[in-house]
């Protein structure tokens, strides 16, 4: 009798398990809760949120390091930190901002918005998506831990030129290499996922030339990632071998060549800078038409310009190396090819301005950030053309002019575009509009802060102040003081964004499905906030009325 009962209990529990499994497959909302929900999630919206929150955390860590640098440079002479530590700060600031803040933020936006914009239920490879994300906290945990190791963290600049990063590097360099490998694998897997999603999961009827510009720029960016991340992986592997296994890839004594390192690094590094800006172009190309209440001017030329920039990015790497002693022919080639990039970029700026022309413009917060992007990215682009001129570059090389240039394209460029995207899609993510007043404070404080920080660097650079040095000659004192004040202002004003975000998550003005009057695209057909599962059946799509390239 007793055995009969236990038999029945076993059968009962077996059928429970079967029911549970059925529930799991039909609806993921019955999945694990608490921390396991986030560790195991395969939902593109949850993973997108994880990416975005991770990059926000990295923005604040990298920003704190930047403020350590600016505090030290507030006055000439050594104030707070040792030169060795200063070197670690500049290196880690660059690495964290590039690989930890800007790139994951764009991947997070891609995760959230690409399935919504192409009408797909999720990313093509949801489990791989989970793995790509969780590699990142591991990678940056390892990278940040090097700061507490004996001999300190990486101190050779984010470009980690050999032999400074091999023969003369701190013992923690092998950990740095592993963390770059992990972040690189994460990017490659993310890129494969994005390509597979865009090429296969578009809703029936949506052709390639009907995709939103954000999807287009990400498709091209993903191909860039697949092409150059292996080069980065190769270069750090060679460093690892030089350090630990006695090879001489970059060691002249053993028959290697340190200049080879620079060629390999920048063959990765130049496409990498476009990886950090092309998705920004896509975001601005959505926001400007929305708030100008016009369709984007020159959709096709935008696509072709993006593709041209991507192809040209493989042909310009040596413009970072004009001062290493290239032959004249090579310097001329790389000078002209670099200047050529200004043409497709100019096409884009022209198209944005033509979209604004005679539009019914409102200056909502996303639009403010997008307009700020157009103006200040163009300043950075123009100083880039100045740097492309070989004889002038010999003067600018390794000065604060270079620092001013790449911060203008990355901060009011890439970062402002990410902020614009966050304000633009926050109603879709949280169901509430971002607080308008606080958003405007955030924008104007950021604009003033960013220009106070980086504009004087043009002048200190032209006057000859070298980068990556914790002390400077007295004549640069005023410019540096202004830069430091601006830096602190910019850094602290980003806290306003956290405030805005928390407020929007908790409540605020409710947003309808179509949160902006002039917005177009499939993401505005699902409710705000977007439910966990969307487009389980592909949405109807008619290019004649829905395509951004329609006539």
């Amino acid at each position: 009798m007793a055995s009969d009962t236990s038999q029945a209990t076993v059968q009962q529990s077996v059928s429970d398990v079967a029911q549970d499994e059925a529930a799991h497959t039909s609806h993921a909302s019955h999945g694990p809760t608490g921390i396991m929900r986030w560790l195991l999630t395969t939902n593109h919206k949850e993973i997108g949120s994880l990416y975005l929150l991770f990059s926000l955390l990295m923005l604040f860590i990298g920003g704190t390091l930047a403020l350590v640098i600016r505090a030290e440079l507030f006055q000439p002479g050594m104030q707070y930190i040792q030169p060795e530590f200063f070197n670690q700060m500049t290196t880690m600031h660059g690495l964290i901002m590039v690989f930890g803040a800007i790139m994951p933020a764009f991947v997070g936006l891609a995760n959230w918005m690409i399935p919504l914009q192409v009408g797909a239920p999720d990313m093509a490879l949801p489990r791989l998506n989970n793995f790509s994300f969780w590699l990142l906290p591991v990678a940056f945990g390892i990278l940040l831990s090097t700061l507490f190791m004996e001999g300190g963290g990486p101190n050779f600049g984010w470009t980690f030129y050999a032999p400074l990063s091999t023969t003369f590097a701190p013992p923690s360099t092998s950990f740095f290499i592993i963390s770059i490998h992990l972040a690189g694998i994460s990017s490659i897997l993310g890129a494969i996922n994005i390509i597979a999603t865009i090429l296969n999961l578009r809703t029936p009827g949506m052709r390639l030339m009907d995709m939103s510009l954000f999807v287009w720029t990400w498709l091209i960016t993903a191909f860039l990632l697949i092409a150059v991340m292996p080069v980065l992986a190769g270069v750090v592997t060679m460093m690892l071998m030089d350090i630990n296994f006695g090879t001489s890839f970059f060691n002249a004594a053993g028959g290697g060549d340190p200049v080879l390192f620079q060629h390999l690094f920048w063959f990765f590094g130049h496409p990498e800078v476009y990886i950090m800006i092309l998705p920004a172009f896509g975001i601005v190309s959505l926001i400007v038409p929305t708030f100008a209440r016009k369709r984007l001017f020159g959709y096709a030329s935008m696509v072709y310009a993006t593709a041209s920039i991507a192809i040209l990015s493989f042909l310009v790497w040596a413009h970072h190396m004009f001062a290493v002693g290239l032959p004249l022919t090579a310097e001329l080639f790389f000078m002209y090819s670099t200047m050529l990039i200004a043409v497709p970029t100019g096409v884009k700026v022209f198209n944005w301005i033509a979209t604004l022309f005679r539009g019914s413009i409102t200056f909502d917060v996303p639009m403010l950030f997008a307009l700020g992007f157009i103006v200040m990215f163009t300043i950075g682009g123009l100083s880039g053309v100045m740097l492309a001129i070989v004889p002038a570059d010999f003067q600018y090389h390794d000065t604060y002019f270079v620092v001013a240039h790449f911060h203008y394209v990355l901060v009011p460029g890439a970062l402002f575009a990410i902020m614009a995207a966050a304000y633009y899609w926050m109603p879709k993510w949280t169901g509430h509009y971002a607080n308008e007043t606080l958003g405007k404070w955030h924008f104007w404080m950021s604009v003033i802060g960013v220009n106070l920080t980086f504009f004087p660097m043009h002048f200190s650079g032209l006057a000859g102040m070298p980068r990556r040095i914790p002390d400077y000659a007295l004549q640069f004192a005023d410019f540096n003081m202004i830069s430091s004040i601006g830096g602190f202002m910019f850094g602290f004003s980003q806290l306003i964004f956290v405030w805005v975000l928390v407020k929007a998550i908790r409540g605020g003005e409710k947003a309808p499905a179509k949160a902006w009057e002039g917005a177009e695209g499939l993401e505005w057909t699902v409710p705000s906030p977007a439910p966990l599962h969307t487009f389980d059946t592909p949405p109807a799509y008619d290019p004649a009325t829905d395509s951004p390239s329609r006539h």
Partner: protein
Amino acid sequence: MSVSQTAQAGVQRTVKKTLWVLLGMVGFTLALIPLYDVFCEVTGLNGKTAESAQIISAKGVDESRQIRVQLVARSGSGLTWRLEALDSVVTVHPGQISQARFQFTNVGDTRSSSRAVPSITPSAGARHFRKMECFCFEQQWLKAGETVQLPLVFQIDPDLPDDIKTLTLAYTLYPMDEVVALGGFRD
């Protein structure tokens, strides 16, 4: 997830293709190392010269031209050696065989090893600088306090471009600790 079968098959195809591209780029990266060396050797970029003894070129001596060959020597960091070019300038005709002497001194107190790595400026002349005998083809060992004089026997190819009047040959002496000696793949 309710992605259709055809879409799933498409995803698999795309992933396969992107993995091939990825593999191709890994191969390309590995190929860049030998390609870079070949490129530098063919063009003479970076001032690289041949790494083993070359035969004498029999194109005759061009007495109408004179080339100033400047010889520079310096020690890399961390090495307790001194390298001096005893003949700092040698004036030669293209095609003529000449010799220059270098003196190596170990000023440290242990036996150690090093290797001199040459570089030619302007790099367009690197291909035309032929070495019949050079200490740079192998590594040197010196006891503490030992001094040796080693010769460089060279010839400038008469094909040297006309606009080159001066060639500078710089030797940098690098320490060859055991790790580097093991991995020195050109030995």
